[in-house]
Structures are given as structure tokens and as C-alpha cells.
């Protein structure tokens, strides 16, 4: 087949640049907004998702993890005594005041867990270790927030709610959805930092014995314990995500922005592909006049749209990778997975196909007799 579609597309370099700019813009906008949504969503439930627990015991009707209310740690022993429980540990995630050495104050979220167990601890530890947290006052802080918290080096000492805190290690990439960075420490230290009573805990993390039905264990624990909710990790993660993303409106805003990006992209691409079609209308009229069926002309237009989609996507996704990388360095959380990249590719093809359909509609009603008009 003579390369009519490709030649038409590449013939007018400026028009091509405008088309590709439109598609690229749409791709970047959708990737960034969807990535932000995914990043935010993942970040809100990061502590829960990485907890390695099967079940969470939380005070009644809390909508998300940051709303935990302390309760008696006696429940821990009731949980441990329940058949099917492999282990159960106390866990804290509470806000506290961080005093910088320059006198400034920041809010942090103290995460306290049993340092002898893996449940509830930090991940991506890049310096120091969880074992270092066994020493009194020691804390781990993600390197993303060192500047914000005024941390200059390991071993530096700060104050959390008036208690001494010493930075013994760092993690990388553990973001907090709120403006308060996570500070990982032992459960004992966390009780001090958050001025919680010694016989209280905020959550109990439960791991089931292998082969035990989680549903059944959840039901048994719920029946055995009073004034608390027993949630699977997935349930609690979902509740937390839903709260932050939809109840607060933050997620809706990001989703709307992604949708807006898509709409703007479709409009820009439709307009440019339509304009390209209009530029070549006489040629399509000629094709129809010499006997080309509509399907042949459609193929040419769809090929043009397809080539535009692929080129625009390649440029757009490359730019998006730079944006995602830059955002990571800048503290924003934009998640770009290969599944999302694939989905956006599909979306780009769809967007260009919609644009092509508008043009096709015009060509369908094209009167081949136009070729005789001068």
C-alpha cells in the first residue's frame, strides 16, 4: 500500500508537531494525575500494606489509621489466646511534635512497633537497622524528610514531645500522605513520645497460623473482643484509602484533574487530527471519486491516528518518566507502574481513535463530486 497515511502525517511538520504536542500533553497529564492518585492512594495506606499483619485490631469505627484511639493492652493477651493466632503485637501510629535543633517545630507521626518482630516495622531501611531501635530514644527517619526535620547526620539528637530522640538510621521512599513524616521507633519509645499510658496500645497486629481461615479468625476475634473492630489488612487499607481519597476530596480532585487531562487531550487530538483530515479533504474526495470505498479512506485516517498515537505516547511516556523521577526527588509521590503505562497506551489509542472517528464522520458524508469543483 502506498504510504499515504504516513506521508500525509509527516508532510506538514508543523501540523505533526501540533498533533504530537497535543497527544504528548494528554499522555503526560493523564500519567501524572493518575500517578499522583495512585501514589497518594498507596501512600495513605503504606503503613498498613507493609505491616505484614493479617488482621488489625483497632478501636471501634475508626475510619482510617491516623484516627486510632488507645485501648487497654489486656486485649493483646486475649488475642494471643485465640486459636489460630500465630503472633500478635502492639502498634502505635500517632502524631507528635518534633522540635528541630534550630528551634523550629514540625509535626511527625510516631510509628511504634515490637522491634523483635517484623510486623509493623519500616521497610527500605538504607542505613542503620531495626535492631538499632532497641536502644532507648533511637529512631529511624526517611531521608526524604531529613531536610524538613532539620536532620544533618546520623546520631543527631532531637526532641519529640519533649523526649530525647536520636536518629540511628534512615529509610528511603517511605512517604507520609499527611505533612507529618513517619518516625519509626520501638513500641516502648513510641509510648513515651506520644505520652500514651504504659498499659495501652493503639492497634494490635495479628498474624494467623498457616492454613487458618482469615475470615474465621476475624470472626472469632470479633466475638471474643469487645469495643474494638477486627479488620483484615485489606479492609483496613481500603477504609484508609477511601477516607483520604474520597471523604477528604483529595482523591476526587486528582481524579478530576486526570479526567480533565484526558478530555483536554481528546479535544486537542481530535481538533488536530480533524484539521489534518480537512487539509487532505480534496485527496479523500479524489480517492472516493476514483472508486475507493469508504473503508479505504477510513483506513488511511485510522493509520494516521494510530501513528500519531504511538509517536505521541512514546514521547509522552518518556517525558512522564522524567516527571516521575523529578517528583520523587522533590518529595511528591507519583506512581507509574507498567500496568498503568500499558493502560495509558490503550487510552492514547482510544483517544486517537475517537479523534479519527470524528474525522471519519466528516469523510463519510464527503461528496466525491467536490473533485469537479475547481
Amino acid at each position, binding site marked *: *500500500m*502506498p504510504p499515504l497515511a504516513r506521508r500525509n502525517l509527516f508532510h506538514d511538520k508543523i501540523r505533526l508537531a501540533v498533533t504530537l504536542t497535543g497527544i504528548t500533553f494528554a499522555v503526560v497529564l493523564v500519567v501524572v494525575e493518575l500517578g499522583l492518585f495512585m501514589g497518594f492512594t498507596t501512600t495513605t495506606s503504606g503503613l498498613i500494606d507493609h505491616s505484614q499483619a493479617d488482621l488489625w485490631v483497632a478501636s471501634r469505627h475508626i475510619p482510617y489509621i491516623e484516627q486510632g484511639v488507645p485501648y487497654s493492652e489486656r486485649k493483646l493477651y486475649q488475642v494471643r489466646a485465640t486459636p489460630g493466632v500465630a503472633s500478635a503485637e502492639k502498634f502505635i501510629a500517632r502524631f507528635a511534635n518534633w522540635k528541630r535543633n534550630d528551634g523550629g517545630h514540625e509535626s511527625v507521626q510516631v510509628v511504634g512497633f515490637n522491634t523483635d518482630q517484623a510486623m509493623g516495622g519500616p521497610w527500605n531501611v538504607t542505613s542503620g537497622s531495626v535492631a538499632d531501635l532497641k536502644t532507648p530514644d533511637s529512631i529511624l527517619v526517611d531521608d526524604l524528610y531529613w531536610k524538613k526535620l532539620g536532620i544533618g547526620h546520623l546520631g543527631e539528637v532531637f526532641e519529640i514531645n519533649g523526649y530525647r530522640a536520636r536518629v540511628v538510621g534512615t529509610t528511603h521512599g517511605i512517604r507520609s500522605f499527611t505533612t507529618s513524616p513517619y518516625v519509626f521507633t520501638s513500641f516502648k519509645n513510641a509510648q513515651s513520645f506520644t505520652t500514651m499510658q504504659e498499659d495501652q496500645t493503639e492497634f494490635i497486629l495479628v498474624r494467623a497460623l498457616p492454613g487458618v481461615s482469615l475470615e474465621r479468625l476475624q470472626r472469632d476475634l470479633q466475638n471474643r473482643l469487645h469495643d474494638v473492630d477486627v479488620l483484615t489488612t485489606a479492609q483496613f487499607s481500603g477504609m484508609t484509602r477511601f477516607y483520604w481519597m474520597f471523604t477528604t476530596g483529595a482523591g476526587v480532585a486528582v481524579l478530576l484533574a486526570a479526567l480533565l487531562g484526558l478530555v483536554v487531550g481528546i479535544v486537542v487530538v481530535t481538533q488536530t487530527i480533524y484539521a489534518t483530515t480537512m487539509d487532505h479533504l480534496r*485527496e479523500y474526495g479524489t480517492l472516493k471519486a*476514483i*472508486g475507493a470505498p469508504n473503508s*479505504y479512506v477510513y483506513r488511511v485516517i485510522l493509520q494516521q491516528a494510530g501513528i500519531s498515537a504511538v509517536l505521541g505516547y512514546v514521547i509522552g511516556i518518556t517525558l512522564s518518566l522524567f516527571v516521575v523521577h523529578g517528583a520523587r526527588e522533590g518529595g511528591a509521590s507519583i506512581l507509574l507502574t507498567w500496568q498503568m503505562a500499558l493502560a495509558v497506551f490503550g487510552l492514547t489509542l482510544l483517544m486517537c481513535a475517537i479523534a479519527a472517528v470524528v474525522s471519519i464522520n466528516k469523510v463519510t458524508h464527503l461528496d466525491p463530486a467536490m473533485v*469537479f469543483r475547481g
Partner: protein
Amino acid sequence: MEAAIRVRGVTKTYAEGSARVAALGGVDMDLYRGELLFLMGPSGSGKTTLLSIMGCILRSTSGSVQVAGKEIAGLSERELPRVRLGHIGFVFQAFNLFPTLTAVENVEVALELKGVRGARARSEARDLLAQVRLEDRWSAFPADLSGGQKQRVALARALAGNPEILLADEPTAALDSHTGRSVLELMRRLAHEQNRAVAVVTHDSRIADLGDRVVHLEDGTVSSEERLRQRQSDIPFSYPSSIPESQLNPARPS
């Protein structure tokens, strides 16, 4: 002898707002193989409308049009392009070449529509360009060709698939008189040497002597008809050796 195109009582009315304008008011005429027919007349006389109807591009309001013996009045919108593709080649006033394709690719598009693809399409396209004496310009883009050369490419494209009918709308209008005459001579050759039915809409009286027959239109009707020379179907016929075998029409005049 059977006409390649037979037009009987054809009318065409256009709607212009609430008014109806008659472009053709009952035209009878035939186009025969082996002849070069000129449709002449002043602007607005209905020449191009008649050519469009003969070419199955426009539907008549009433009357009968037969192309290659087949009545086209009742054909669907899907069937009309097939008739065009199978029987008719078009040459337009403004050449209507695809500017982003080379000369040979322009011809290949038409061949592809007729089911000829790949190396065979390239070979046939080059043969057709050679037939219009453009063998050395096959890789040129339309922008790099003169007006006469563009019209020759358009002619080669119209010949793709070996249609028995060629319809041309003001093919010399955008050319100087010398070039226009040479293009018309080429079309006459195609009519006479290849036994094609060629109809040309023109208002260029300088080339009228090249035709075999002239039909004059005025106000949408045939006002007069003059035969300039004997129809080619009545004279001895021979194929020139320069025309490729695949482009030869096996149907010889009786």
C-alpha cells in the same frame, strides 16, 4: 454498436434554499469506444454535472444512464464506487494528485484499489507512466512536476486497471495551449489506439479540432452535436507496441 455510456432523458435538479434549480433538463447522448468526445458549452450549461452523472459520481434526478451496458440509476451508494472502479478513469482540472506521494505512488494507489499490489503494482505503474512519456520522472513528487507532467501522471492514474472509459473535466484548463494540446493528443491516442471511450469537458475551443465529436450543451440541454471525423470503430485498429500487454484491452471493436 453498443455505447460505453448511454444517457437517456437525464435530468438533474439542485435545491438552492427553497428554490429548485434545474442543471440538466432531459439529456440524451451516447459515448462510444474508440472516440474522443468533447462536451462543450458556456459556464453553467451543465457540462460538469453531465460528466459527473456519466461517471457515477452524481445521481440523476430522473432518466436512464447505462455504463458498460449496466443501468446505474437503481444502484446503491455502495455499488456506484464499484462501477467507477471497474469501468471508469477520471482526469480532473486541478490534477488532484496526492502531493505527498511520488508520481509512481500516485498511480499505485489507483492500482491498489483495483487489487494490484506490491511489485506488480510498481511495475504496472511504471509502465503506465512510460505510456504517458514520464518514465524518467516516476520518483518525482507532484510539486516537482510541471502542469503538463502532473496531468500526464493523472492520466496514468486514470488508466490504472485498464478502464474502457476515460472522463476528463477541463483537463487543459490549468495548462498552456501547447501543453494542453499535447495532453489532448495523448487522450486521443488512448481513444483511438486503445479503443477507449473518452469524454472531455472543455470550453477551450482551440483544441476542439482534436475531438471526433462535439456535443454542445446550453441551459442543461444538448443544443447541437457535430461529428468532426469518422468514429475509430469504423477504421482499422492496431495496438501500438509501446503499450504494455497488461494494459491492452482485449475487446476489439467489431
